[in-house]
């Protein structure tokens, strides 16, 4: 099934005259920057998931909130779908435009409005980059904890929309645990504040509901995040194993010892070699798996924890154990991991990144099944794993210029996600459903559950104008997806006709 918006299964979109819309925007908001020519629209045709591209009808680049409100009101009145976009680094096509829609780019809202060290909060505009918040808070000894690998580029508005994670989630939580308040505009352009500068607010927890809602319920115009004092120290241990099973078990053993590491990452041999070739992090390239375990906090506790973890890792059969001897080596150990995606990208013209989560105990079985699928589909898979919280990132290597390889990669990816669901996990831990995993939503949720999701959407956007086609599949799409599965068996291969 085609991943791009398909009105037949995703629902009809209103037909809007581009020129009329352009005229309305220009008349009412003469200072608003609107892109409408083909060559101007091109850079916006995809987000971080570049395999899927659609040219938007128009791109608007507002500079103040009144303009955003104005755009939403006009679009609501003229029934034009609106897709909000931050930095465009998302990996699930959450900001993939629509031919019949406006792309609302929020990247220019990049001001840090206020850092309040005594309250330990930062109030920022949605286009502020994740890392910029920590940089602005650094003079006060504070930082913003969630650190997705794209943190130098991704914006906080997008982080909230996707409930972004990172390598420190197990200890410090996801975006939802680190945001105090968001200001949004509804599809009608009405302003709402969700959450507050206190630790809770009256009524339903709409802040939790909006976090991770992928731009389907409102447009984020301001975010207040919680800041934490920087840990006094952080140490990283690198352990090598001769089997991924042993490495997986070691993760459980660390937790069983009562230790919650700041970060706990695992890479398999293909990922290790790719990262080592690229970054020269000093990884042992003959290991079947490595674990990176970061322990952070107060000096005395960290030293204690390091001793405990060393003992656990050796007991678990680590063939080699190293502790970063200084900050430079610690950064290098992490650089290998944080650059694992581009590193794997050097092995192959294209790669496709999965984001499933599983209960950790299922890891050996799931990795085994992924290896089998990899053989079956004739595509290599490198595994990078947020081991502490069960979030896997299998990277499927393929060449889009070879006929049928993209489709094969997609199918293999779909199988991996369905496997995650089968063992009690989820199709996405931190990248979001977006457009990419829209079909796999049908595997994770039944039609009654999807109906409830549609009801939630209807409460905020009854006309379905905000980011249509993302996050929640129509029942129609799931019916066809289910049919494909039943009839397919070995499906779908490129020679077969698609729905």
């Amino acid at each position, binding site marked *: 099934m085609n991943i791009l918006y398909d009105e037949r299964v995703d629902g009809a979109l209103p037909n809007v005259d581009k020129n009329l819309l352009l005229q309305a925007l220009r008349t009412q908001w003469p200072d608003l920057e609107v892109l409408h020519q083909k060559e101007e629209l091109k850079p916006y045709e995809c987000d971080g998931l570049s395999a899927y591209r659609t040219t938007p009808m128009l791109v608007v680049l507002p500079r103040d909130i009144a303009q955003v409100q104005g755009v939403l009101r006009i679009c609501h009145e003229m029934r034009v779908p609106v897709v909000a976009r931050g930095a465009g680094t998302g990996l699930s096509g959450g900001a993939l435009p629509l031919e019949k829609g406006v792309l609302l780019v929020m990247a220019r809202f990049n001001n840090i409005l206020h850092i309040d060290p005594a309250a330990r909060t930062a109030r920022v505009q949605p286009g502020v980059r994740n890392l910029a918040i920590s940089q602005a808070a650094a003079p006060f*000894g504070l930082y913003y904890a969630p650190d997705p690998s794209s943190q130098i580029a991704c914006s906080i508005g997008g982080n909230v929309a996707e409930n972004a994670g990172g390598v420190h989630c197990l200890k410090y939580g996801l975006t939802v645990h680190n945001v105090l308040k968001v200001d949004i505009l509804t599809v009608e352009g009405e302003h709402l504040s969700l959450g507050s500068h206190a*630790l809770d607010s009256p*009524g339903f927890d709409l802040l939790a*509901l909006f976090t991770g809602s992928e731009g389907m319920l409102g447009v984020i115009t301001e975010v207040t995040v919680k800041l934490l004092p920087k840990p006094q120290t952080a140490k990283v241990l690198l352990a090598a194993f001769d089997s991924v099973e042993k490495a997986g078990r070691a993760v459980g053993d660390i937790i069983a010892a009562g230790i919650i590491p700041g970060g706990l990452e695992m890479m398999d041999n293909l990922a290790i070699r790719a990262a080592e070739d690229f970054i020269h992090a000093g990884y042992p390239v003959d290991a079947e798996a490595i674990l990176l375990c970061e322990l952070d*906090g107060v000096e005395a506790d960290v030293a204690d924890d390091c001793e405990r973890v060393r003992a656990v890792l050796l007991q678990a059969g680590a063939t080699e154990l190293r502790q970063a001897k200084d900050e430079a080596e610690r950064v290098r150990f992490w650089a290998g991991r944080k650059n694992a995606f581009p590193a794997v990208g050097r092995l192959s013209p294209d790669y496709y990144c999965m984001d499933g989560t599983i209960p950790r105990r299922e890891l050996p079985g799931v990795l085994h099944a992924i290896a089998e699928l990899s053989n079956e589909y004739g595509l290599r898979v490198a595994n990078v794993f947020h081991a502490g919280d069960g979030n896997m990132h299998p990277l499927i290597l393929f060449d889009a210029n070879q006929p049928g390889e993209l489709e094969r990669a997609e199918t293999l990816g779909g199988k991996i996600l369905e496997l995650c669901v089968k063992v009690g996990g*989820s199709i996405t831990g931190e990248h979001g459903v977006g457009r990419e995993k829209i079909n796999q939503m049908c595997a994770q949720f039944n039609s009654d559950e999807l109906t409830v999701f549609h009801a939630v959407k209807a409460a905020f956007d009854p006309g379905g104008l905000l980011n249509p086609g993302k996050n*929640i599949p129509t029942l129609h799409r799931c019916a066809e997806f289910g049919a494909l599965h039943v009839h397919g068996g070995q499906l779908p291969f490129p020679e077969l006709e698609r729905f």
Partner: protein
Amino acid sequence: MGSPDDFDDSALLLKQVNQALDNATPLRIQGSDSKAFLGRTLAGEILDTRSHRGIVSYDPTELVITARCGTLLSELAEVLDAAQQMLPCEPPSFGERATVGGMIACGLSGPRRPWSGSVRDFVLGTRVITGQGKLLRFGGEVMKNVAGYDLSRLMAGSFGCLGVITEVSLKVLPKPRQTLSISLDMDSEHALRQLAEWGQQPLPISAACHDGERLHLRLEGGEGSVAAAHERLGGERLDGMYWDDLNEHRLSFFDEDQPLWRLSVPNNTPRLSLPGRQLIDWGGAQRWLKSDAEATFIRKVVEEVGGHVTCFSHGLTDTPFQPLPRALMRYHRSLKQQLDPQGIFNPGRLYAEL
């Protein structure tokens, strides 16, 4: 299975909800009724959730526990304790028979909340009987899951107004290796200033309360950090039971006859000028007030500092929860209408309009 503490009664609950839907009978969802004092008075037929009880799964190395709604909070705590783990948000019981379902529905958190997170922060998944009369699952048993809307965290603190929570999966954590409670002699203004300063430093504080006279702190972490913090901060040793007594409102402060108000404010809010007595918890972010002052007056003062007020004395006001701005209420109603179109789940418990 078969033990009196473990019984899957979801089929009966589902049947009762479907009957209520058929007859358009409003339901009053009830566990042990330990928190019935919170919120507006409810009419409606009682839906007793206590028969659906028991811990469904718990694997300490996965840091996840799944329990049915009627499970006693005390049982949950015991099971976790045996594995040296805990639910870090310390939900208060307000009664020995408090249930897991009520804990989620009320969403109240204890002294560790500012440092650990709230009840909703530990919710990973729920099973819910919906307004369409279906028993559905949202979220799951994994730490990270961003598929679909986050309905399970939305259930926390919804006071049963969006559906019947039948089961919940919670993230749990190992207990800290070391705990030490201390008490320092300082007035409340000084304490608030100190807390704001300490908050910017990596100190192992996990509870901070000022009772009007002294600042009470709990230190938690490894042996080294707790010892170092104790040496730096000084103070007298305090019995750790203090935090339970605070959490369960057993301190003498809560004994007085005057109405009890909960003020939720930004943590660095200076001492609030209000008639009556105040107790500062959550390192400044939660203030308890014993006062005869008018609700509207208390709300006005607290709203001005960006906070909100809940009345913890039942029946005193028709709006125990802070009234919502009009636009926000409109979307609350819209959500309630979508998820509970017949309005059978605890109608009016939170607000008359919901």
